[in-house]
């Protein structure tokens, strides 16, 4: 058995970390785009759209992300296509993130005072114009901290893709452990790397939140 230095371990983990970062970015951005659709459906006039969006959110928030990954992974098999793990992982994470972001943003839109809707309506604006010029610009501002906060969940969520065989940080940890027989060191490092990714995001989210509260306190 060869001896592995700490650097050997760290280097291999860092290489895999790139995939964690990439998958996180894709999931977050893709989830954001789909999440916007969910948001608009959730606050649309037609009841059917609202109900459909609510069901979508309930479904994705009420079931384990791991199951969603499995279903995406094996679901393609039903159509006779076999997809690589990264694709199934990306699709599942995007759909999952969209549900959470859509719901977070709906909360932000609903936090805008009723008076803003009424004032803009009384000026003759259409619903789209109200949304575009009055409601969304304000909702966007309060949406930033929780959205940044959710990015932490996305990064952590990517760890589950190791289970369907995508080689990112966690999977690399398992592989390296099997080669080195040093689980304590390896998983400790894996945790530290995740922490290094997530903690700055958490801190940013909290700082933005505080800033927002200060600027709103004199209302």
């Amino acid at each position: 058995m060869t001896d592995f230095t700490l650097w050997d371990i760290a280097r291999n983990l860092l290489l895999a970390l790139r995939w964690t970062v990439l998958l996180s970015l894709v999931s977050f951005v893709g989830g954001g785009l789909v999440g916007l659709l969910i948001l608009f459906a959730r606050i649309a006039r037609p009841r059917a759209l609202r109900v459909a969006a609510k069901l979508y959110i309930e479904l994705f928030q009420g079931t384990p992300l791991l199951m969603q990954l499995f279903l995406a992974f094996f679901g393609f098999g039903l159509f006779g296509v076999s997809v690589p793990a990264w694709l199934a992982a990306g699709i599942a994470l995007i759909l999952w993130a969209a549900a959470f972001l859509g719901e977070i943003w709906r909360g932000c839109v609903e936090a805008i005072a009723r008076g803003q809707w009424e004032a803009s309506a009384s000026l003759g604006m259409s619903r789209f114009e109200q949304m575009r010029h009055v409601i969304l610009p304000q909702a966007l501002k309060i949406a930033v901290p929780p959205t940044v906060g959710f990015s932490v969940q996305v990064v952590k969520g990517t760890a589950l893709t190791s289970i369907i065989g995508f080689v990112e940080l966690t999977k690399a940890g398992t592989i390296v452990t099997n080669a080195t027989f040093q689980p304590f060191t390896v998983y400790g490092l894996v945790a530290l790397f995740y922490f290094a990714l997530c903690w700055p995001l958490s801190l940013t989210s909290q700082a933005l939140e505080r800033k927002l509260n200060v600027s709103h306190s004199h209302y």
Partner: protein
Amino acid sequence: MSLIAITDVHKRFGENEVLKGIDLDIAKGEVIAIIGKSGSGKSTLLRCINGLETIDSGSILVGGVQLSSEEKQLRDLRQKVGMIFQQFNLFPHLSAGRNVMLAQTVVKKTPKAEARKIAEEMLDKVGLAHRFDALPDELSGGQQQRVAIARALAMKPAALLCDEITSALDPELVAEVLQVVRRLAEDGMTLITVTHEMNFAREVCSRVVFMHLGRVHEIGPPAEVFGAPKTPELRQFLGVN
């Protein structure tokens, strides 16, 4: 022909019938004060005229056009009838000037430069030309309410609805807002104001409407309504015996 014709309007919220058959004709250039106890339906009536609430039966005509719940028509109506709210409801993310410009450019498609000119004009009218770039939360309550008035005026409405527009203001700021409204009245603007400022109603208004339990209980020129109230309810409301 009257500018606003309200005929037998009924409105209920669930079990609670708030408007029980309102009839009211308002001519161009009239200044109407609506007074009455809390819960008598004053705000609801104003909100119906602006289409913020839909009516259950009866009809409201503005400039001869029937108020309907059809989106396009409603928007046309709202350009003719502006509304000022108790809580100002300025758009907090836009400067005072941009508040006044927004609906012009978005709804009326007025070119930016022209909208800006009108905004400056309107802010000047309410004595705030120098605060064009101020954000709402940099303004006092009285100033915010004056911007809200300028914002409504910029749409060139035929009438303005004011719902207790001084009630959220500190006492020392009430006068500056009432002064602006007074000047609008002198300029011939049609005004319908819900107010608790009895002196204002007495001095400025052409007619006073006393609402009670969802009905127009008494109506007449201020001298009559305040000087010789006919019904015990109005006498009690005014505190005279």
